[in-house]
């Protein structure tokens, strides 16, 4: 065990178990389609998530068109608007961000970064993707079923989610719940893989405290997801029963449109507890991988070790643990017993402390660095700004009494888009620019990348920063039009129109990004194995893109932590993790 993570060691323990023979594909189908190679699965996950994410992007355009220019577009009515917001939210949070960070980045980076040949359960890993794909198909099919997708809001609160006053009450909600159940089954298969791989398949010398923060973030997020998703799973099953079998888990006695219903005795608030027991950790399931990845982006491109590595690891773990006891801050005005407010406000604000430590350490890593303003670095800087902004508005909403006027207003929409929409997407994009060379062997075009960054970052900020102030004024969320109200001034409509125009521009800028992805694949500058001169293992593979089994004949051996940048006295400004320390340097380092 290495006590001080940044000290290199010469002695590396011997392998505890011999290597297991990998599964080798025998045909084109098992190599590229039903592949058990984590890297192929990662790309399958990423492409599927991106495809459904583009649907969600188009939905956001529809919403912004309606909000910016109400009544102009005859093809958007109140019901469709609700269907758009529901599908947009659900796709973005679960089917895009969760799948991309864990299924995409997790699959690609974990085995490479810990020095393994593949995930430990490759077959289950493959199944995980195909079940995920099925979940996406079921979800997408709701656009074509009678009644369309559900319009219950992404939170799916009963009773309205399964009553006829809500669009998509027939097929829409049933397929949505089924799709969620499938997603969770698929995720669980993948998630067990990631956890066991990190714990059991690390190469010699790769202690836990030498893991890159990317792996720490994905690892912690996966454990959280394995604990949190079951709450959503049971909630989905129970609501399906309520809808299909007439049980009353979440349904009290009620009257619908003048008709007495047969339900009775259930509790709508029970659903909210289950949903948010999943839903709040979910925020961090998306955020922690982003925290980890952005730490590595900043460190690599500032040519400086991440500041306070141990504190960063403990902050990730502390945030992960605390996030399980803050869920009811989503429910301050739900009608739950008001005394809960004291407890949940306190825990929620406490979580700000480890989160703030992470922010300080990111900016302190920049201090006295050698900052290369590459595209990944720009996205990392954009992440810090949007995350700090969104994190600080969380201190408004987490503080129970401040939440009372702001809950269910556009302030909330602005807050969570900034903190778990824009900020993680900044990391996703930065990470794609960073690791694309490893995946394809070619660099993404720099000019297109910079254009993409500035339009996306400034545009997203211009949309969501002013949106807070609409919420402060009192504009409620989930309204397809504000309608007549004395406190709504004409300037509100002007601002809405402005945000909509910017949203269209930001959306269009993503086309440049997609074009860049395709164009660079064929015409991009060849990158070589380690274009960013990074220390972590994935850049030290014998081939780029890494071949089947990642490491050729010999597994790499790790002698040092992941952040040996600009070490005094070293020949270059980075030392790869698998480079043994020189005798002379070592004698100087150990007393």
């Amino acid at each position, binding site marked *: 065990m290495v006590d001080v993570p940044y000290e290199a060691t010469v002695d590396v323990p011997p392998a505890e178990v011999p290597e297991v023979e990998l599964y080798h594909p025998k045909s084109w189908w098992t190599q590229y389609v039903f592949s058990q190679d984590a890297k192929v699965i990662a790309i399958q996950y990423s492409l599927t998530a991106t495809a459904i994410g583009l649907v969600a992007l188009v939905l956001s355009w529809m919403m912004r068109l309606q909000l910016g220019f109400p009544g102009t577009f005859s093809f958007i009515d109140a019901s469709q608007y*609700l269907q758009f917001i529901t599908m947009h939210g659900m796709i973005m949070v679960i089917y895009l961000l969760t799948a991309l960070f864990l299924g995409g980045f997790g699959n690609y980076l974990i085995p490479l970064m810990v020095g393994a040949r593949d995930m430990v359960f490759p077959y289950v890993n493959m199944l995980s993707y195909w079940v995920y794909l099925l979940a996406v198909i079921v979800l997408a099919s709701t656009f074509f079923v009678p009644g369309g997708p559900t319009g219950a809001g992404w939170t799916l609160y009963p009773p309205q989610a399964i009553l006829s*006053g809500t669009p998509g009450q027939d097929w829409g909600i049933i397929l949505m719940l089924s799709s969620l159940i499938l997603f969770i089954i698929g995720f669980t298969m993948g998630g067990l893989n990631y956890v066991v791989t990190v714990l059991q398949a690390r190469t010699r010398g790769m202690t836990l405290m030498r893991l890159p923060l990317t792996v720490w973030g994905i690892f912690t997020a996966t454990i959280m997801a394995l604990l949190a998703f079951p709450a959503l799973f049971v909630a989905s099953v129970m609501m399906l029963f309520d809808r299909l079998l007439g049980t009353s888990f979440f349904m009290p006695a009620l009257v619908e449109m003048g008709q007495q219903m047969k339900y009775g005795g259930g509790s709508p608030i029970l659903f909210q507890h289950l949903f948010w027991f999943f839903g709040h950790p979910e925020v961090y399931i998306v955020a922690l991988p982003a925290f980890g990845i952005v730490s590595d982006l900043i460190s690599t491109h500032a040519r400086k070790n991440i500041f306070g590595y141990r504190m960063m690891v403990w902050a990730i773990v502390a945030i992960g643990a605390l996030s399980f006891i803050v869920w009811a801050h989503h429910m301050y005005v739900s009608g739950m017993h008001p005394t809960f407010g004291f407890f949940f406000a306190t825990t929620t604000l406490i979580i700000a402390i480890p989160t703030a430590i992470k922010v300080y350490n990111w900016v302190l890593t920049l201090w006295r660095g050698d900052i290369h*303003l590459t595209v990944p670095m720009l996205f990392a*800087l954009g992440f810090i700004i949007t995350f700090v902004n969104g994190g600080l508005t969380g*201190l408004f909403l987490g503080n129970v009494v401040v939440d009372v006027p702001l809950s269910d207003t556009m302030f909330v929409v602005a807050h969570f888009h900034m903190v778990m929409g824009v900020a993680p997407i900044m990391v996703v994009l930065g990470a794609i620019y960073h690791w694309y060379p490893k995946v394809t062997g070619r660099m993404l075009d720099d000019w297109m990348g910079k254009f993409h960054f500035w339009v996306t970052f*400034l545009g997203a900020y211009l949309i969501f920063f*002013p949106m807070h102030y609409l919420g402060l004024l009192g504009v409620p969320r989930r309204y397809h039009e504000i309608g007549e109200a004395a406190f709504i001034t004409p300037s509100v409509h002007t601002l809405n129109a402005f945000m909509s125009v910017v949203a269209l521009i930001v959306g269009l800028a993503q086309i440049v990004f997609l074009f860049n992805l395709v164009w660079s694949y064929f015409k991009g500058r060849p990158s070589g194995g380690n274009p960013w001169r990074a220390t972590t293992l994935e850049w030290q593979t014998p081939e780029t893109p890494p071949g089947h089994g990642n490491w050729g004949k010999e597994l790499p051996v790790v002698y040092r932590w992941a952040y040996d*940048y600009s070490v005094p006295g070293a020949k270059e400004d980075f030392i790869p993790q698998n480079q043994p320390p020189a005798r002379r340097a070592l004698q100087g380092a150990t007393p």
Partner: protein
Amino acid sequence: MIVAIILLLVAVGSVLFHIYSPWWWTPIATNWRYIDDTINITFWITGAVFFAVIAFMAYCVFRFHHKEGRQAHYNPENKKLEWWLSIGTAVGVGAMLAPGLFVWHQFVTVPANAAEIEVMGQQWQWSFRLPGKDGRMGTTDVRHVSAENPMGLNRDDPHGQDDVVIESGEMHLPVGKPVKVLLRSVDVLHDFYVPEFRAKMDMVPGMVTYFWMTPIRTGTFDVLCAELCGAAHAQMRAKVIVEEEAEYQAWLEQQKTFAELSGRSAVTRATYRSGGK
């Protein structure tokens, strides 16, 4: 250089936008000025942190961006600095949390002299009920809801007979008197939301929720629904009119009791006039 300037402009622009934004909260109409104060404290603290972090970051980009021959400083950790930053953050968090919890305590402590009123939500309209001369509201049950009895009052409960039932979508309140607003729904979740009141709370079928407030100024206020309740969520509107006591009493005189509305007017009109005797 340009990058550092843009980053700084984002921070400066955000602060300027905050100062000059024409979009700010509505003039408050209840005693919950403390909530606004807590928001202001939070704005000051978070605004300072936001500006400091972004400005520091912009400075780093300006000062330490890559130049030929620059080497980054090697500095793995600094326990002392990390602890001081943590402690400073904890103090800032405490400075927001303490007033927040203090005001929350007031928010959940209903004064004994608060008059009760009831608001009921259903897709997609609001109904209101006042206790009537006997000062007590009758019991209700969703199973009693019908076209003649939309609020589901219990016909056999003597306390309910003189309850004032308001289906016009226009509620009146006397200024300066604390009121406990009981909230009920017969179908889905709703949320009784008047931006000027600051207080709001979900209405949940199967249970009664509440908040309290004291209206401090007269006026007409829009009621909106703040919890998604189906296709016509955005159209679920009503009005609350806060007025002086005399006007309020004049309005109250004209309202009908449950008994009157449900056709037992002959008997109960007398009950109402005599105050329940």
